[in-house]
């Protein structure tokens, strides 16, 4: 076996969190509703925390609290952007990369220079949208209590349904042939166009782009165990969940 160690310039996918807040407590308040209390909402993706939208920087920031908070959501913070220099030492102690400089160097590298550019930060502003459609995840067996299906990019198609206590999370839409039970979250990355479609509708919770609804007192007869579509509609400037039977003529 070769023992050669190689350093290659490469790109990898990650998540950029743009937050106008730097207090872990405030973030927890604001995001609790969005993620409906789901621990490990994400699947361990690397994340860059972008704080360029913070208008009023406090003197002290609980960086380790912030990192712990995003870890609980299932992200792995690897670096920050848009943070005043006075925090550099604190960030270094937590081994968080300060990425502003790297991003600037990347832009400089666009002008011809005989130097190899450093690996770009994930999802740098210059990255083009991929032309290949995001892959669809096909799940052929029932998703059972305690199991989680997570599609960080595309759609999920459940060919044998899901059971109570299961959790289905997709950046895109969720299609279900068979009973749909458990917690079902589509448009997880904020995609307002995502939908949930099921032949036998009966989940405990549905969510599209963070707007969710639970069915504590059971489902209305008009949708229970029927073919149902869930999507967002705009009502007086607000996104609302629309849950309606699909007419099968």
């Amino acid at each position, binding site marked *: 076996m070769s023992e050669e160690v190689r350093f290659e310039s490469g790109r990898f996918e990650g998540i950029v969190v743009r937050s106008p807040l730097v207090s872990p407590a405030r973030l927890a308040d604001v995001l609790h509703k969005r993620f409906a209390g789901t621990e490990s909402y994400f699947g361990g993706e690397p994340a860059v925390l972008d704080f360029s939208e913070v208008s009023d920087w406090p003197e002290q920031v609980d960086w380790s609290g912030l990192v712990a908070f995003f870890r609980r959501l299932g992200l792995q913070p690897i670096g920050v952007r848009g943070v005043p220099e006075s925090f550099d030492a604190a960030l270094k102690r937590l081994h968080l990369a300060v990425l502003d400089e790297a991003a600037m160097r990347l832009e400089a590298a666009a002008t011809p220079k005989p130097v190899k550019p450093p690996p770009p930060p994930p999802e740098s502003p210059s990255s083009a949208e991929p032309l290949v459609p995001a892959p669809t995840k096909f799940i052929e*067996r*029932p998703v*059972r*209590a*305690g199991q989680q299906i997570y599609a960080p990019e595309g759609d999920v198609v459940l060919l044998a*349904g899901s*059971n*109570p*206590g299961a959790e289905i999370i997709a950046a895109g839409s969720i299609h279900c042939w068979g009973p749909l039970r458990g917690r079902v979250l589509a448009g997880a990355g904020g995609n307002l166009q995502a939908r949930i479609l099921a032949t036998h509708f009966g989940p405990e919770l549905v969510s599209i782009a963070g707007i969710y609804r639970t069915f504590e007192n059971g489902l209305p007869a008009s949708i229970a165990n029927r073919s149902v579509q869930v999507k967002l509609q705009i009502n007086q400037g607000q996104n609302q969940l629309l849950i309606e039977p699909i007419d099968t003529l």
Partner: protein
Amino acid sequence: MRIVVVTSGKGGVGKTTTSAAFASGLALRGFKTAVIDFDVGLRNLDLIMGCERRVVYDFVNVVQGEAKLTQALIKDKHVDTLHILPASQTKDKDALTEEGVEKVIKELEAMGFDYVVCDSPAGIERGALMALLFADEAIVVTNPEVSSVRDSDRILGILQSKSRRAIEGRDPVKEHLLVTRYSAKRVEEGEMLSYKDIQELLRVPLLGVIPESDAVLHASNQGVPAIHLKGTDVAEAYADVVSRFLGEDKPLRFVSYEKPSLIKRIFGGT
């Protein structure tokens, strides 16, 4: 050799009763069968099999190399082709290692066993994981109540992700549903889930339905596997289970309830 795990997630649903009856049933059909108690620390199988006084060495002793497998295997007093490997009462669950269990299973195969029945402890911790790790087939024991069904669902998910077959990407573990402690009367009265409801929820082929019966309690107190209780519905239901497991076609019995007629109610009788 086929390895069959009897599992459920929830405790007290009838795993050990089923393991004892099912292993005995396979042995009665002439298959060389071993039944292993994975419930280290809370051994029960030897009591139900009526061999608790013959336990000298146990599963953990073999796993830890303190005894030979042949020393620890106890020959069943009812059926010649059945052997019991009891659990340890003194050790804790961490005493079972993957390598140790694998060694025992390989040795059983070399000894010419046809079936190994693994009696899983309740829960989804180490003991239960060890019991299902090498399974080719799984009998998921479920009672007709919601929490038991939910736990069975959970264990089915674990079977399809944590078993060797799943990890190595081989054909999945073959699943069987066994509904136990079933009272057709209480189902009729709407107090219990019907076996059809359970099957619809779990979507696993039904291997059988075992009726609720006092005979099970008597059997376990006497150390006799329920399948040996001649003439009881429980023994017949378990015999049907073994037949279906071996691919024979048997209609379901003991699942419908007929109200006693007026004459019977007046004059008694059965």
